[in-house]
């Protein structure tokens, strides 16, 4: 089994800083400069983080699916380190999405939770990804862990459209998806800035997290350490 190389470039930290900058400016404009929405008032401002989180959450899920398929076909462990990062960041974004949605739903719909297709699908994926992370913790053999979590990721990702469809038939209340074309032009700038902010942040997190996974994998796959005497002999 080939041991993945660990890059030491500073790129992720630059992207991370860029993401934080975008989020700061975007959130400032969204909170202080952009006008309040006519019907929902200030509550609507949560859109500036909620919608970017939702877009990037979908990207994280697609990225995880891509890594899982690439690993099963190529068998290269670097895809496993990326999968680990993608699933973990995807779990985090799904959790954030559910929390932001609940904060928004309470003043708007009067309830914390609603059985809307998008909400329910996010929650289902959150639990599916938590299951995959738990599975990874219990498998000691790195190769088996990589294969099984790839299989579980593919199964969970394919389930998403079916969950969405089934819950949509079952019940629906959520408003139409927000895109820059459905919201007034004054809301565009903060929405776009925050979308890129979350995208950069997510990219940096995935890069750094897969680096950590690669370090751990190197330790697991490394030869057992040589005794001090032998090492000294080699040096002499």
């Amino acid at each position, binding site marked *: 089994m080939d041991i993945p190389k660990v890059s030491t470039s500073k790129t992720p930290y630059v992207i991370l800083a860029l993401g934080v900058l975008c989020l700061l400016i975007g959130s400032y404009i969204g909170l202080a400069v952009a006008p309040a929405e006519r019907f929902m008032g200030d509550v609507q401002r949560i859109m500036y983080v909620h919608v970017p989180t939702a877009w990037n959450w979908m990207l994280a899920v697609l990225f995880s699916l891509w890594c899982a398929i690439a690993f*099963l076909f190529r068998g290269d462990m670097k895809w496993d380190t990326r999968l680990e990062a993608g699933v973990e960041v995807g779990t985090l974004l799904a959790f954030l999405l559910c929390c932001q949605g609940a904060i928004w739903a309470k003043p708007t719909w009067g309830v914390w939770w609603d059985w809307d297709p998008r909400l329910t699908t996010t929650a289902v994926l959150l639990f599916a990804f938590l299951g995959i992370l738990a599975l990874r913790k219990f498998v000691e053999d790195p190769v088996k862990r990589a294969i099984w979590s790839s299989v579980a990721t593919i199964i969970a990702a394919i*389930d998403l459209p079916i969950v969405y469809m089934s819950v949509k038939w079952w019940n629906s209340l959520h408003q139409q998806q927000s895109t820059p074309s459905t919201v007034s032009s004054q809301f565009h700038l903060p929405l776009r800035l925050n979308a890129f902010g979350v995208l950069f942040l997510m990219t940096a997190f995935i890069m750094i997290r897969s680096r950590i996974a690669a370090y751990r994998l190197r330790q697991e796959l490394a030869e057992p350490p040589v005794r001090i005497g032998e090492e000294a002999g080699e040096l002499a």
Partner: protein
Amino acid sequence: MLIAAIRKELLIQWRTRGQLMAVFVFGAAALLLFSFAIGPNSEALRMFSAGFLWLGLLLSSTLTLSESFRAEMENRALEGLLLLPAHPIALYYAKAIANWLQLTILGVALVPVMIVLYDAGTLELLKLLLVIFLGAAGLSAPGTLYAAMTAQLEAKQTLLPLLLFPLIVPALLASVKATSFVILGDAMGESGKWIILLLAFDLIYWSLCGLLYGRVVEE
């Protein structure tokens, strides 16, 4: 090859039939307990009876599924099986079909318990049987795959439901809706689309899990 593998699975199930009885008692006890969540309101109990039936079956299925791989783990029987000139796909489908059959029997056996406890009788028995048949298929395809993984781990009792439950949501939802239309009456003819959804779920996972099983058990 597939026939021989199925015969082996059915033989194992026949010889451990006491276990199926125990799981049935577990499912029936679960149905009894669900009624305490609602209280002695016969109208509400009847309304939620389909949901209770499927939750009872889902909880029992984690027992049957994990049990179905216990024999394979003893004396490393699974490794021996994989050394035979049999394709792992055949081994998967034999196991999944055997589990499917067992879950169908379990589901059918739980129906009278549901009728007695919740007063949820119906005359459309063939349609009910079809829904149980398709719902059990939806549980057994991914369930068998995940059971093959978790059976090799220490924390199997926790991990199997953790992996299976989120995945099974569409099949559960469709089965519950279709069953409740059978029990409560289907004036708008809506049960058909739920049965089609269930069928689609079954087709997707019966093909996908068969493809992936080879990678799960390989050494």
